[in-house]
């Protein structure tokens, strides 16, 4: 079986800073509010995004999350970056010439918009995941009274990701033991069949888990095990510091945008 570092558990960096100690529901609300402020900011106000980045840097410093860790985890954003980089070449409208290449102005603004807002959102999420254990995060979701079906699904993902990854690994070893090597595209059929087998196995496991749950009195509702650990006003106020500052920046950016039109 897998060791102490699970695929989902690795995101968390243990610590005891103010950010770590905040109740998960406060951090969730703060992150969502921050991202809302960022995406609602007009893209032409470039300075505002600099301020947002500084706000996040302040949070990272308070939580003692090293910049290197954040930078490495931002790799998840790469597919979107590729898409954004294509926009100046394919978009229509007014064009400018940079180093002999014709680029679309609206495409450039579009790329900038996706890149900067996406990156700020990703960094905010990385900070949330680095300071909150996955399990605690789900507790926060539960306390915010989000639909319990969603929390149940996420909770099962958390529990069974390792089990499924482990099965995948065993199937890979079994393939390799019989001389299989994934060298090129022609072997894709074998991999597809492995995935199908894995899907079936997981589906059957789901049925067995359900049986075990029903045997212990499950009736479709998850019992509430963690009481209502309410966050204090002070904790909400602390968590609000980030989104409040962001909201201020967003409001200023809009005022500047309007007065200059």
């Amino acid at each position, binding site marked *: 079986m897998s060791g102490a570092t699970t695929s989902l558990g690795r995101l968390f960096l243990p610590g005891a800073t103010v950010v770590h100690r905040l109740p998960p529901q406060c951090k969730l609300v703060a992150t969502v509010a921050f991202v809302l402020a960022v995406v609602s900011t007009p893209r032409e106000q470039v300075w505002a995004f600099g301020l947002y980045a500084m706000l996040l840097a302040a949070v990272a410093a308070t939580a003692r999350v090293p910049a290197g860790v954040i930078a490495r985890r931002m790799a998840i954003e790469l597919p979107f970056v590729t898409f954004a980089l294509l926009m100046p070449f394919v978009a229509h409208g007014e064009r400018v010439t940079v180093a002999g290449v014709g680029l679309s102005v609206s495409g450039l603004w579009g790329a900038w918009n996706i890149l900067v807002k996406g990156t700020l959102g990703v960094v905010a999420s990385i900070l949330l995941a680095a300071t909150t254990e996955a399990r605690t995060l789900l507790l926060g979701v539960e306390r915010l009274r989000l639909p319990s079906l969603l929390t149940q699904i996420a909770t099962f993902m958390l529990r069974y990701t390792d089990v499924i990854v482990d099965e995948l690994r065993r199937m890979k070893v079994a393939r390799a033991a019989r001389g299989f090597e994934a060298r090129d595209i022609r072997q894709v059929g074998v991999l597809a069949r492995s995935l199908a087998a894995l899907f079936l196995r997981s589906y059957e496991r789901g049925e067995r888990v359900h049986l075990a749950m029903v045997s212990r*009195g499950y009736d479709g509702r998850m019992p509430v095990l963690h009481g209502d650990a309410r966050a204090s006003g002070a904790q909400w106020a602390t968590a609000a510091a980030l989104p409040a500052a962001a909201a201020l920046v967003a409001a200023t950016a809009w005022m500047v945008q309007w007065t200059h039109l």
Partner: protein
Amino acid sequence: MDPSLEVRGLAYAYPDGHQALYGVDLTIARGERVALLGPNGAGKTTLVLHLNGILHGGLGTVRVAGLGVDPADKKSLREIRRRVGIVFQDPDDQLFMPTVREDVAFGPANLGLRGDELDRRVVSALTRVGMLEVADRPPQHLSFGQRRRVAVATVLAMEPEILVLDEPSSNLDPAGRRELAEVLTSLDVTVLMVTHDLPYAAELCPRSLIMSGGLIVADGPTPDILTDDELLRAHRLELPFGFDPAAVAR
């Protein structure tokens, strides 16, 4: 006093027409430890799933400590599921909550327990299987033997009338096997153990049943059953090489 488990004339065919049980009769008195032996496909799992009303719709009756299993009566079904604690074969199926503590609390919380009473149940169940120190760990970080013992605790927390174990010794290493045996013998609860592991049955259960072809074909003291070569051979059961059940009986 009512027996812990009373099954009368239980017959069942799966929706695809495959008949799995052909009229099973068995009675298990309170406090007994009984092994249910039988080859693959004998209907053992089908029988187990009838004990708490997950499968139903055939002929016959199942009574748990006097209370009949009636799938139509939701309220009594809940009580039946409290009384019959099933430990499934793969602990990864049984342990589905993020931490051991939450998993053990799942059953009693479904029964409506909260707060201190719930905590007390969890602590007592984990103590009985010697797993209290792992209460706050995720199940996937435990060894297989530890997970199996926690799985036992998850049903003990419901204070069942009868503990039903499906292949409890499968995949355990020798130490894990012995530790589980120690836990099971220390419990003051009726046990029905479904297994192919004849030495384990000999060690833990004074009485054995053999199930074959959807019927109970033998019922008696485990040493007698395990020394009846002809009976065992007729139902695809074999003692491991070098094992002498007569030696265990003493």
